């Protein structure tokens, strides 16, 4: 752990030395904090039931610098408390470290480094409450929110937009573990103000046997390839937002065995999410809600290394809350999350929280 902190310290030092030498550029330092008091009113785990705590769930600390009129860099650290009972300190890690090159092609930006992924960014923007919970694909690790590689994002016209990514596929936390790369492509229409219609696909070949390459599964079910398809529709009016996201992820020829003993059966994960928020006529008060349905394996009876998986493992997630904004960029959000499992006898989870969310920024400063 000390080595990690030492490495981050060196990175910071080098980074700021570099920045200071670049005089006359505009820069921004900004950040976000999500913190909660939570109480597990019910939980399927008897150990977790009744637990309550104050916690920092997420901190972002971001530095952005316009290196040239066309090239901007971002460096973002993220950190959070560990799970209940974890006595380690809060440690930061690098979430973003990229160059953003505007007009690399007409109306397109090129990203190089650890940058955002295109799998659910639009849905996340419409949901607008990452401070409460990640969107369904992020929450269930269908894709990471950031990854290492390159991306091209831009407009194909006034109403048609797209985003191509070529990433390691390991997310922001790990180095590459095999020779294959993840390809992602999002294409979306914005035919009228506030409306978005999006399709997304991704694909990454895998080598579960490790022939000729390092073997390290990027997914529990493994497979010869992973692929995802999703659709998203969102509408944002001045006083309300609605959105729905549907996806299916396939692990081709997975490492699982089905109930009939068939080896390398395909495993599919699928889910949908419906969400909305509303600015009430009461000053500084919003309401939000969401319903997710997720099935981590559409085949209810598969075996991985002789361990049974996927039996009645679907769940629904219900989120509801209030968002009180006493001052700009400060939010107090009492909310409740209920997770309902389909498995017989498995108790539902219910957590009540008071979430504090705030943002800060220096605005643009001249270095």
């Amino acid at each position, binding site marked *: 752990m000390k080595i990690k902190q030492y490495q981050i310290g060196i990175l910071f030092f080098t980074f700021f030395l570099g920045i200071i030498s670049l005089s006359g550029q*505009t820069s921004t330092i900004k950040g976000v904090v999500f913190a909660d008091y939570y109480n597990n009113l019910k939980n399927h785990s008897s150990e977790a039931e009744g637990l309550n705590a104050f916690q920092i769930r997420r901190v972002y600390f971001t530095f952005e610098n316009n290196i*040239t*009129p*066309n090239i901007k860099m971002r460096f973002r650290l993220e950190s959070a408390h560990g799970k209940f009972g974890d006595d380690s300190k809060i440690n930061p890690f690098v979430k973003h470290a990229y160059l953003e090159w*505007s*007009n690399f092609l007409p*109306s397109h930006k090129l990203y190089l480094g650890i940058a955002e992924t295109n799998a659910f960014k639009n849905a996340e*923007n419409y949901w*607008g409450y990452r401070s409460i919970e990640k969107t369904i694909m992020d929450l269930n690790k269908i894709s990471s929110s950031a990854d290492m590689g390159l991306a091209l994002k831009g407009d194909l016209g006034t109403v048609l937009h797209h985003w191509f990514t070529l990433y390691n596929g390991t997310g922001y936390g790990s180095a590459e573990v095999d020779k294959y790369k993840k390809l992602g492509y999002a294409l979306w229409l914005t035919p009228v103000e506030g409306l978005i219609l999006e399709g997304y696909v991704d694909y990454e070949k895998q080598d579960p046997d490790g022939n000729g390459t390092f073997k390290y599964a990027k997914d529990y079910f493994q497979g010869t390839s992973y692929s995802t398809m999703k659709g998203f529709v969102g509408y*944002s009016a*001045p*006083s309300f*937002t609605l959105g729905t996201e549907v996806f299916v992820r396939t692990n081709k020829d997975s490492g699982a065995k089905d109930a009939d003993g068939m080896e390398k059966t395909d495993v599919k994960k699928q889910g949908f999410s419906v969400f909305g*928020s509303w*600015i009430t006529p009461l*000053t*500084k*008060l*919003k309401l939000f809600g969401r319903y997710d349905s997720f099935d981590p394996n559409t085949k209810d009876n598969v075996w991985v290394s002789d361990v049974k998986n996927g039996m009645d493992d679907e769940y629904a997630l219900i989120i509801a809350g209030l*968002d009180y*904004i006493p*001052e*700009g*960029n400060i939010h107090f959000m009492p909310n409740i999350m209920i997770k309902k499992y389909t498995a017989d006898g498995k108790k539902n989870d219910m957590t009540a929280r008071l979430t504090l969310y705030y943002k800060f920024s220096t*605005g*643009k400063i001249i270095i």
Partner: protein
Amino acid sequence: MKRILILMCVLAVFTGAMAQDFIQIKGSDTLINLVQRLSEVYMEKNPNTAIAVTGGGSGVGIAALIANRVQIADASRPMKAKEKNACKENGVIPYEIVIGIDGLSVIVHGDNPVKKLTVEQIGGIFRGDISNWKEVGGADMAISLYGRQANSGTFVFFQEHVLGKKEYSPKMKRMNGNAQIVEGVIADKAGIGYVGIGYVFDDKGHVRDGLTVLNVSPKAGDDPVSPLVAENVKSGKYPIARALFQYINGKPKGAVKDFIAFELGPEGQKVVEEMSFYPVSGDYLENNKKAGF
């Protein structure tokens, strides 16, 4: 008895102070002189309302509205999608009002023989693709660029509508406001800048000495059009005309509603003309109806 009288006086003063409405307005430097004048005229007739108008740029004004620090944001460009998202996140419902129209004027030094340019030529000049006046029919002289800072709505509007969303030349001098651009160009024979039309006139309503306002053609082969002719701007013939916006949070009410109604009424629109901008017309009237005016 004396103490009671003093107490009553103090109470009366406080009651009076509490009864006064206070409106904070922040944003565009293009609009600042206009909105200050509108406020002065309004406050003369409505002494119980105090209005404070400050600049900083359209982006700064909109950010202040999003953070609930002002009641009205002045902007010389429409709100961006990112800003609308930030509004939503903070529970702000932006209502858009157009209070006037501006023929964004491209100005050169009065001695410069160049009197007209196309939009593409102006874009090329400010991108740095055209760097000598002889390339557009002028003297053999390096072009000197005067523009605004990135927080300015005029900077953003000009970049989107004239530069084709491309970057400004790094050689452009980034001035604090319209007035500084005018002064810069008057003092620089190789200068070219862009300002709200309200800034090109002197006290008598004439174009300032030492300044030429260029006629602009939408594209090569089209007739060049002057922003100094009101009809050209109102009809949309002048290619770099734009609306001057104000944004408020939620349906207009109280003193804010009263003040904006004044701005859009005959008296307010007369002030708009006196300050050398153009009154609201055409589709913008419909836009204002949607906002409750």
